[in-house]
């Protein structure tokens, strides 16, 4: 019934039923998130501290609580400690992931023998797009300007592929809804 109510809002016009279902969805999702958050805290913090005696876990719990001190102006400075810790850990993980996974491995994968047309196209695309984002000097009248045109073509092709994939994904989602309606509910398929 919820699916049909939401579809009525899309296929006809917004109505009280589609709005009601949207609100119910938001509310139940929020409730589920709260349950998971409390369960996670219980599993990784409260239970180990209370039952297993792992008092060291009080430190990250305290840092997490300190994040909420930003709502009290007098002690808002304390939230910076928790934030700093989060930013530091996040940056450390991101730097490692970026350098190894997204830079070194990808550059390595670009060094391919130019024996197939695919490899040639890939190399031209990578070099031209890198040249396109080179802003240190003016490109007009240099070899970079021709590469820029090629880069724009390559990027447009890439965005077209991404768009096509997104359309495919959205069609798949609608198919899931139709399968539920026609199969599980009406039993037609």
């Amino acid at each position, binding site marked *: 019934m919820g699916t049909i109510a939401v579809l009525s809002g*899309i*296929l*006809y016009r917004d109505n009280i039923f589609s709005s009601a279902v949207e609100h119910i969805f938001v509310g139940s*999702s929020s409730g*589920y*998130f709260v349950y*998971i958050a409390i*369960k*996670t805290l219980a*599993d*990784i913090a409260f*239970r*180990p501290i209370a039952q297993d005696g792992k008092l060291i876990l009080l430190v990250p719990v305290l840092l997490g609580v300190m994040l909420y001190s930003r709502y009290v102006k007098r002690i808002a400075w304390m939230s910076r400690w928790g934030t700093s810790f989060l930013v530091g*850990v*996040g940056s450390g*993980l*991101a730097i*490692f*992931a970026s350098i*190894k*996974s*997204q830079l070194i*491995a*990808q550059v*390595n*994968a670009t060094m391919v023998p130019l024996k197939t047309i695919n490899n040639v196209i890939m190399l031209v695309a990578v070099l031209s797009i890198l040249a396109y984002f080179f802003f240190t000097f003016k490109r007009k009248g240099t070899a970079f300007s021709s590469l820029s045109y090629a880069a724009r073509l390559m990027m447009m092709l*890439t965005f077209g*592929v*991404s768009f096509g*994939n*997104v*359309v*495919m*994904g959205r*069609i*798949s*989602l*609608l*198919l*899931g*809804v*139709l*399968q539920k309606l*026609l199969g599980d509910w009406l039993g*037609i*398929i």
Partner: protein
Amino acid sequence: MTWLDKLQNIDSRVIYWAIFITLMIPLIWPMGVPLSITDTTKVVFDLVEKLQPGDVVLMSLDYTPLVAPEVHSSAIALCKHLFGKDVKVIFYSYIEEGTMFGENIISELTGKYGLVYGTDVVNLGFVSGQAAGVRALGDDVLSTKPRDFRGNVTADLPIMQGVKTAKDFDLVLGIGDGLAVLTQQIGAVHGVTVSGSSTAAGVSGMMPYVNSGQVKGLLQGLRGGAEYEKLTDNPGYAIASMDAQSLGHLAIILFIVIGNVAYFMKRKQMTR
């Protein structure tokens, strides 16, 4: 308003209805459009085929109900293949909603494969902290998840014996949009083989990882699930949707062509 203007400003509800009907027809009357298998799907299949009974696989269910119709069929097809080979599967998710899909899969397949929870399969549940949480799980599984989704102590479960870090897994599979994080925080750090399924929208972002060998193979959206169902001879929801998917794409192409033809004809009219 001329007919060209009307073509360029079609009411969106007309398009929605047209897509709706176009997708319904092949679902009710299947056409049997042939389905070819892509190389990336074959690689995933071969990886799972090489596994031996008793091997342990970590499966990350990182998708929400919003995109579940796209990738849940891939998860089911992969699990059927894995359980059919007596491979043990450990589920987790770094997205809150992903944990319930683990329970869905376990309840759906327990009867068919005689699964014993805790011995053949376990759902570790939600791992908080996004990338940091995934990294922590890879470094020390038992400390990161002292209890599973059902409240059992993970160290006491038979399936977790011998599993300390990500290196102890024979294969790591990511389902949904979390495959990139899995690759960066577990694959790159521990050198384990990573594969899985991505939403169609995420395929463009995952292909650099596939081409560089960091991810071995990829099931691409719903089509990937259909191909895997065909390879494993386990027809399901994904294969049944392929006719409708093809027709839906044709309808979208038709609308794009109509819109562009109307645009260029209008432009030509105005320049005269």
